[in-house]
């Protein structure tokens, strides 16, 4: 299933973002593609000035929204100095601050003590607590015990449980 360039008809491999033949943006819909003087790059210049990623600045008095995939209701959380994320288990005495059991944590390979969100002056960091199936931040696997800064809109994966985090 190749991507046919709406401008020149060249068949590009899926995932190619700019046509390998004529160099035009393949992300625009075909309806606009016939306009010959469409200058997509003027827009791109303005956007380049914007931050690449969401803000890393977190106001300590505000809260975070955690959107677990396939769940309409987000988790709203006022992060403490340290918020442990995991799943509760009758055999274990330690209970996580944020229990992901209602979101299918067990089937999705979330550890009892999986990860933690730590709040400092004006940033939040995510730490993998040595979980069995790992914690991924925007597709990158975290090294256990090494904090990574969280940004607004980041994708976090606990085992196979996918969530997005938003600052509010």
């Amino acid at each position, binding site marked *: *299933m*190749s991507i046919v360039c709406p401008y*020149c008809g060249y068949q590009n*491999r*899926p*995932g*190619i*973002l*700019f*046509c*390998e*033949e*004529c*160099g*035009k*943006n393949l*992300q625009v819909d075909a309806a606009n593609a016939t306009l010959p*003087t469409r*200058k*997509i*790059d003027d827009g*791109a210049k303005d*956007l*380049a000035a*914007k931050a*690449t*990623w969401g803000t890393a600045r977190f106001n300590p008095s505000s809260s975070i929204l955690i959107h677990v995939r396939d769940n309409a209701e987000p988790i709203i959380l006022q992060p403490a100095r340290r918020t442990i994320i995991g799943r509760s288990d009758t055999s274990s005495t330690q209970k996580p601050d944020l229990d992901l059991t209602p979101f299918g944590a067990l089937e999705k390979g979330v550890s009892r003590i999986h990860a933690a969100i730590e709040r400092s002056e004006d940033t939040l960091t995510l730490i993998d607590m*040595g979980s069995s199936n*790992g914690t*991924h931040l*925007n*597709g*990158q*696997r975290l*090294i*256990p*015990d*090494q904090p990574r800064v969280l940004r607004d809109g980041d*994708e976090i*994966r606990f085992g*196979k449980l*996918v969530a997005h985090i938003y600052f509010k």
Partner: protein
Amino acid sequence: MDLDFYGLLGISPHASSDEIKAAYRRIARRLHPDVNRNSPGAAAQFQIVTTAYETLLDSIRRRRYDEEQERNRAVKNNMYFTLRVTPSKQSITPVGDPQVMYLLTEIAPDPRTREEEQKRESTLNLTLVLDRSNSMNGTRLDKVKVAAHQIIDNLSAKDILSVVTFNDRPEVIIPATYVTDKPALKARVSLMTAAGGTEIYQGLSAGVDQNRRYLGPRLVNRVILLTDGHTFGDQERCLELARTAQKEGIGISAMGLGHDWNDEFLDKIATATGGTSAYIDSAGAVVRFLNDHVRHLSNAFAERVGVSIAPDPDVQLELAFKLSPNPQPLEIQDGFIPIGSLQANRPIMILFQLQIPAEIELGFRSIARVMASGDVLANERQAFQALSDISTEVVAEPLPDDPPQSIMDALSKLTLYRMQERARDALDRGDIAEATRRLENLATRLLDMGEEELANQALAEARRVAHTSNLSDRGSKALRFHTRYLLAPATDDKPTAGTGTRQLE
């Protein structure tokens, strides 16, 4: 934040030996040379991981390693750099065809350095290798002298400078020395006269020799080659020398002045060492360009930075390109691709293009491991490393997923550079019709983007190719370098006259 042996294996410092074995097996399945026959990145990383594994599995060696790490952590103010990789999409859908994914890789200095380090100058071990062949006579040589004088003025007494001039033979006019007696050094530069032909190997080899004399791990060891001519018969030896220099820790930047030099060759020399290549189209731009280059070198936070990418066995690396600073194509044959300096105020951005196979299973899977290494100049202990493991989710139904703007922005420009490259490839194959078509397409795109002058140049070259089957000397360089400079942000240095805002004259 240091990447230690535990981090390399993705385990906690308290891991049991069973956990260590399991982690190593998991990584070996991705990196082992038996499953990655054509991946120098995987081979290099496999070796590193194996060393970590063997050390941690041996309880005596593990204890010794832990103690050493403890001591290292006790050293205050150790600086690090960060590695962040953004994929062009968070999830992929099997489509029955191979598909492409991009990884935007950012290597940034320790955020703590932003204020302190920007002012702190790194110490240079700088060698200038200057062409004084006949064609340099007149304005060119005059401007080179002015440039060298200004460089001497801007260096400090801690810096080391050597200057070699060459035509058919080399002459060391300033043997490697601390920059203390500036008037005397400048006087020696003033005595340069133009004569003879161009034999780059002679000059480069003498220059690298001078640089070696003070070669040090906490210095920026750099040779800058400036030439305006073709060299004959010694290109292979030059490249061999460049590769040796890179292994020793010396970077080479190669600058071509005017239109009569081999752009492909200078590109290769620079790429092989993590240096920069540049096209300086008029003598007037020499002064500013050389000075800017040296100023950036003295702003280095880390040196001898290398990046290594190990795609999973079924994933193919197709392209690596340094977007910033100083856009430069990268060679993917090295386990660690030399990148050169990481400046205190500008992150390094690299774009990788990967091909994912047609046959992929649903679920989460890893894509590639990216590692960065480099010497942080402020640290006592060198060879800092950072790691990023990239994975994605393969889903049956595509999720709404717009590629990050940073990747779109980089690709909109990089595509233009790739178009001129493909035109060149077609020309090399003797396919005149394809080369012409590609150049015409390039001209159209450039015009769309408001790059009128370059568009006209591309169009003129398209006509020329159609008639003569050749690019002009000037056009070839303009297309190769100016499409590349489109990637540089407006504040970045572009070595063409009139585009820069910073003038040191």
